[in-house]
């Protein structure tokens, strides 16, 4: 794993294996998700892979009625909006991701601060398979577990 470059390509490869991975600066310890190869804090260039637990809280979101064609192809439209947002991970870094399992027809009912857990959406496409990072609210039994 240590030989893999800290690139978006490798980040996506990991998503395909249901892993949410970032990079940690060997010099100053700063954590980045998706990974960076250069630390913007101390300019250190030595990084280590770090796997995230995949849990966090919803920090901000939107429910989109008119999306790009790849979302329209999944059946989303004005009548069936999708949610996407910013999640702060337990490790105190943020990621942007799709938000699943919320009622997008009643966005007033979606709460910032909701605990969420990662899901990996595997999609087949003309140009190869891709995995999209998503989060969904933790169910009560997940929270107990």
């Amino acid at each position: 794993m240590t030989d893999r470059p800290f690139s978006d390509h490798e980040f996506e490869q990991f998503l395909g294996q249901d892993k949410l991975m970032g990079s940690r600066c060997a010099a100053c310890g700063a954590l980045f998700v998706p990974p960076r190869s250069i630390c913007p804090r101390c300019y250190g260039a030595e990084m280590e892979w770090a796997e995230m637990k995949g849990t966090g809280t919803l920090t901000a979101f939107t429910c989109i009625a008119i999306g790009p064609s790849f979302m329209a192809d999944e059946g989303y439209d004005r009548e069936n909006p999708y949610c996407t947002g910013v999640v702060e991970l337990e490790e105190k870094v943020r990621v942007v991701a799709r938000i699943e399992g919320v009622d997008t027809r009643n966005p007033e009912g979606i709460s910032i601060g909701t605990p969420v857990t990662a899901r990996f959406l595997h999609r087949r496409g003309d140009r190869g398979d891709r995995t999209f990072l998503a989060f969904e609210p933790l169910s009560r039994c997940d929270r107990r577990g």
Partner: protein
Amino acid sequence: MNKTRKLGRGVAIVGAGMSDFGMFEDKDSKDLFADAFRQMLASVDKGVDPRDIDALYLGNFTNDFFVGQSHWSAIISDAIGLVPRPATRTEGACASSALALREGVFAIASGFYDMVLIGGVEDMSKRSTREVAEGLALAAVPYERKSGFTFPGVFGTIATAYFEKYGASRRHLMNVTIKSHNNAPLNPKAQYCVSIRDIMNDKIGRARAEGAPIPDWSDEVDFLSDPRANPAIAWPLHLFDCCPISDGAGCMLLVGEEMAKSFTDDPLYIVGLGQGSGRGLHAAEDLTTFEATRAAAGEAYGMAGLGPEDIQFAEVHDCFSIAELIHIEDLGFFEPGEGYRAVEEGLTRLDGSKPINTSGGLKCKGHPVGATGVAQLIEIWQQLRQSAGERQVPGGNLRIGAAHSLGGTGGTSTFTILERR
């Protein structure tokens, strides 16, 4: 980082012109820019010979995508007769022509050129709304695009963060829209020269004429709260929170300060220039502020030796209603979290203590992306020279105005302060 910057040679604006903004089936970028150029030439009080223009800097975001044609700097240079003088394109998404201004200023300040034409153009309306949305998303951060964010989606997300942090609501976004639409009927070049009340009354009149059920909207807020009149685009943002798809062009003539009075007795001087860069949503520490704007403002205020209280009025980049609230806080006009209260109290109206977007803003004037930066500066030019007609900021004592542009989802920001002496 905190160095105070200055120009090696002062630079003045001696002419400005812009096309009408709107959706024009029968006009391309050459036609639009030629309109702007003709008006610019006519605006130079003592006249100018276009043969004296040394170079062109042209802002254009992505006509490559919108009309399948790139390299507009040379095409425009040819269209207005500047060939073989140098023509350079600048790209900073929605701030593209604000960057053209900077490059033009630097070229004159260095002593290399004496007279530079700066401008911008975009031709967006020939594509479908979905295609335009995809074209604009080219300026977002790749992670955002993959997560399904659109431009309205990014700003909708910012809005939820702002609401959560400061207790604002959709009602406060509506106040921004209503204010901008109240200025728009006073701007003959605006794409939507109409107030929200007029739009509302027009719809009621049409329903009556057609014998359809007559809507019972009591006021503008009631109208904007009705999802049939104002559908969600990227909740909490609705149609009337978003700027339109527009075609348009604008340009300005810059000269070395010492030459300015040979072209006009009333030039404007560039006293503050700032630019910053920013990062994506996931990497921002706080979603309710743009790091790039704060950097740009700091640089421009430092150069001018001025503070936010000295800016008498401003154009800010209201691509979405929420953006105007964030910008008026980032530029220091109001404290963080106080912007929405200031708008509610009317402070940003044409007759308020800090008029914002007297042109109607991107929301009503239109937002031909590559032309927007220069068009904002043209509004400052008209206001400072007391030539803004019915929308002239009252009081008659204008000396300092400023324009703020934001590129993409905060990746580029500029702030430019102009002075009339």
